[in-house]
């Protein structure tokens, strides 16, 4: 299973964290500190796997962002590497050629999307189309709720004028 997902910028800033195994706050910070050190210092032509504390971390760099997922020793590394790419492709489609800034200002969107791809540290949906459809449906639910709210407040303000 995937124990956690980290998005780390080249400067070591955290852009997203998602923990599927119970780590305490202290452990989380420690993990982030250690792994940023290990991964950011790796050269460009090395393999995408790092062995770390009895686990493996599969990572891939996209422009200025490192996507990292921590898995068990015996898990299939390449499969997870392509889960990362699958996630990136969906982000790309949603934001329209995604960049780090999109993820900074819309970090909550990234969480919504990740929740449609992974649950319990396992892949939930491998169809990009399905994920896109579900996210669009969520967005429209939020929009409708907002419109309703504003129309109600309009009615109220009109009535109390």
């Amino acid at each position, binding site marked *: 299973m995937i124990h956690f997902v980290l998005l780390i910028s080249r400067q070591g800033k*955290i852009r997203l964290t998602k923990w599927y195994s*119970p780590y305490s706050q202290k452990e989380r910070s420690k993990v982030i500190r250690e792994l940023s050190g290990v991964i950011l210092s790796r050269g460009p032509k*090395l393999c995408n796997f790092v*062995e770390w*504390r009895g686990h493996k971390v599969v990572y891939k760099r996209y422009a200025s962002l490192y996507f990292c997922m921590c898995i068990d020793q015996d898990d*299939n590394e*390449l499969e997870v590497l392509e889960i990362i790419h699958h996630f990136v492709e969906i982000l790309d489609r949603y934001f329209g050629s995604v960049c780090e800034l999109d993820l900074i200002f819309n970090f909550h969107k990234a969480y919504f999307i990740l929740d449609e791809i992974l649950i319990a540290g396992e892949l939930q949906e*491998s169809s*990009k189309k399905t994920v896109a459809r579900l996210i669009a449906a969520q967005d429209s639910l939020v929009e409708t709720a*907002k419109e309703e709210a504003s129309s109600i407040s309009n009615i109220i303000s009109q009535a109390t004028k």
Partner: protein
Amino acid sequence: MALSGMRGLSVFISDVRNCQNKEQERLRVDKELGNIRTRFKNEKGLTPYEKKKYVWKMLYIYMLGYDVDFGHMEAVSLISAPKYPEKQVGYIVTSCLLNENHDFLRLVINTVRNDIIGRNETFQCLALTMVGNIGGREFAESLAPDVQKLLISSSCRPLVRKKAALCLLRLYRKNPDVVNVDGWSDRMSQLLDERDLGVLTSVMSLLVALVSNNHDAYWSCLPKCVKILERLARNHDVPQEYTYYGIPSPWLQVKTMRALQYFPTVEDPNTRRSLFEVLQRILMGTDVVKNVNKNNASHAVLFEALALVMHLDAEKEMMSQCVALLGKFIAVREPNIRYLGLENMTRMLMVTDVQDIIKRHQAQIITSLKDPDISIRRRALDLLYGMCDVTNAKDIVEELLQYLSTADFAMREELALKAAILAEKFAPDLSWYVDVILQLIDKAGDFVSDDIWYRVVQFVTNNEDLQPYAAVKAREYLDKPALHETMVKVSAYILGEYSHLLSRRPGCGPKDIFNILHEKLPTVSSTTVAILLSTYAKILMHTQPPDPELQQQIWATFVKYESFIDMEIQQRAVEYFALSKKGAALIDILAEMPKFPERQSSLLRKAEDPEIDTAEQSALKLRAQQQQQQQPSNALVVTDQRPVNGAIHASSLSLVKVPSMSSNTEVNLGEHQKLSEANDTLSKVDGQSSPPADLLGDIFGQLAIEGPAASSVSAEPTSGPGGASPRAADALALAPLAEQSNTVQPIGNVSERFHSLCFKDSGVLYEDSNIQIGLKADWRGHHGRIVLFLGNKNTSPLVSVQALILPPAHLKMELSLVPETIPPRAQVQCPLEVVNLRPSRDVAVLDFSYKFGTTVVNVKLRLPAVLNKFLLPVTMTAEEFFPQWRSLAGPPLKLQEVIRGVKPLSLPEMANLFNSFQLSVAPGLDPNPNNLVASTTFFSESTRAMVCLVRIETDPSDRTQLRMTVASGDATLTFEMKEFIKDHLVTIPTAPPAPLPAASQVQPAVSPTALTDPGALLVGLL
């Protein structure tokens, strides 16, 4: 886009981004946190929108790495909001901020459950996602049935069902009992007929977890998995959106093959044939292409197929095809493939017959040891370590040594350890072994642990032929200019013992040796000084006739250190000085060290211990390999097979018949009488230094067969191979005593080992000079799994190995097959499944025997499957505790007893003791500070999970007495728990056995008196 409505959040994020330095950022964040805190304080004024915004800000701040220790409640409370936008934020932020152990989560279990069972599909999705991501045990217990319903419901849409499948997976991981195997296995099989590939992917993940724990129940799923794999591999009926770079869902393919690896074999010939067709197609049809993602995906499938082929033990032809593929991979340029090639080749080593083919790639693997990527270097090191045997040890170890001087620090210690082990295990001759270790110390002294040089000293001491050679080598190294201190230590030790063997050589006279060692003295640490002083004394002793000048020099040194600050050195200096004045007597006192007893290399133990070794995987692999390969090893042959203290003993003993033995053959003796005889024997035995467990075993075996207990023995479902039945125990019991006892004595105190294992889950259960029985246990609810590790410490096999479990009536135990022979220096793992049927303090016994040479060793060992292993501490608040306490009124559900003769413990000590039993002490719950209350949950099949409450009232003026009250919903549990606690309060576990109880007075006790208490053993059977 979506942020149009969240201006406040965007502004805050840009502010943080515009901060020039960390300090400014902190100020900005602190300001925001202060703002949020005040806004949350008067919550009434907050609109849902504002609440949402602040909660997002909190998450952002949290992500930046700042502590956010408030506002969790606000995030959690959003879950109960009626509208989707707020609820969504509540669920997502909660599952990011909190982990499963957080108390706040309990508050929303009901809300979450209502969302799950409610009609609103979007709410269902949110709730399932959160529970799937952070649900803990409590969620598992209260939500699993609802989640199961959703998963199999025909009216739910795929988007809900796939989430339900993974949510159930999470709950199952937290508590496997929530999935009732009997009903669920058919459901699982039906679920695999699912057409929607999203749902199927999630279901397959669930299946992997289920079969990994219990493949037997899910046999019916096997053919379906093969069908799914066929469908995907042939790209038959796979919608376009589920192909990834032209490959039909690579993830589902991988998962399906993973599930198949948990079934021991595929029996049905048709299924097997179709499976192998698919695998063959994958092996042959995967090409390297330009597109990285396509390549990765197809190779993910390929590597999983390789693993499955290995697991299924395919025909040799297919295996060699796999090795050929791996051989190709380890030479490619693409680093990922190279890494995986090495990793899988290491796994392949476990398959017999292919080692020779793998050896052909040795040169290529050695090249990878110099790869720029540390991940790849680690894999290469592991593989070299695994593939090393007598034929290639020299090459491989020399490569490792060469690499050591350039290796990065992160790897040096592991490298040094591995080189030392290989040199020891596979040394073609001993002088080479000495060379290797000395080189190791020379090149990487800082990374050579003391164990390594102790080991070389042991070898040299035990092998006379080796001593002159080692001395010469040690002398040579001393000429080197910059010497590592470890080298000084080992050289000084060896030269002290054996330099007299060289005295005719030039430069090796006592004076020369002294002078060159003496040069090092000023620069070394005090532990080394101590060794040097001993060496001086030895040199002095060996110099016959005495050389007055040398004598003066050494005496002067001793005198100088007589007032040294370190006590140990001071003492040595004084004593050596005094001794050396004695002349001839010195020769006896400082004679050569005797041979060391044969023992397991502490290095190997170190490498095997996953807690110590950083690369856990390699340790695991190592263990697996040792079982599989049983390569011929030279290592311990070296340490002289002459038994150190056993054989002579044994032969003389075999002439003596212990009188009590005859009683065993007289079946018609009354039970009482027999036991009292047994007691006699025992008390005699107790007088001796070693407790011969076998004696006891005999008595025990005999009674076991006569008594009513026989039923419980035969009820035991599987026993060891080849007649490890009650009959066999009988036969053993009647075998002449001399054959089976006293020659082999346990190392360490068997009883103490048992007691310490009662409070931890891994450790050594038994050890003697031939075998070590380790144990690892895992307890979940009323289920337990104990793995016994039987390790042969010798260079010859242990034969007629038999293990028989004698379970008490309340435990259902199933031991997997124990091989009859344990090969030299191999370790065998035997899993043992335990189910607790009802509360009891009786103890299960492992009747273990083996033959080493002509000696039969039989021991009866108590297994730590004791009452407290089936407890799970629960913390309770006063509101939870007292209603329950009051509702359980009076006997038999609530029992009270005044206990005297308690070993005096302070309250904190007692609380610690209770916590170590898994009884969770609730401080301050009882208004009286001299009292203590604790609560726990007990698991068994008859009681299920049942809360058990305990109250201790102490008397501060007399700590040897107290009043204990125990309450639970089950009378037996209450009684057993009370007695269990009493046993631990009254007796001190290491105390000598109490007077042995008469046979009639059966006192079912987890008595801490171990093997010397036949009562305890008997009870295990009754």
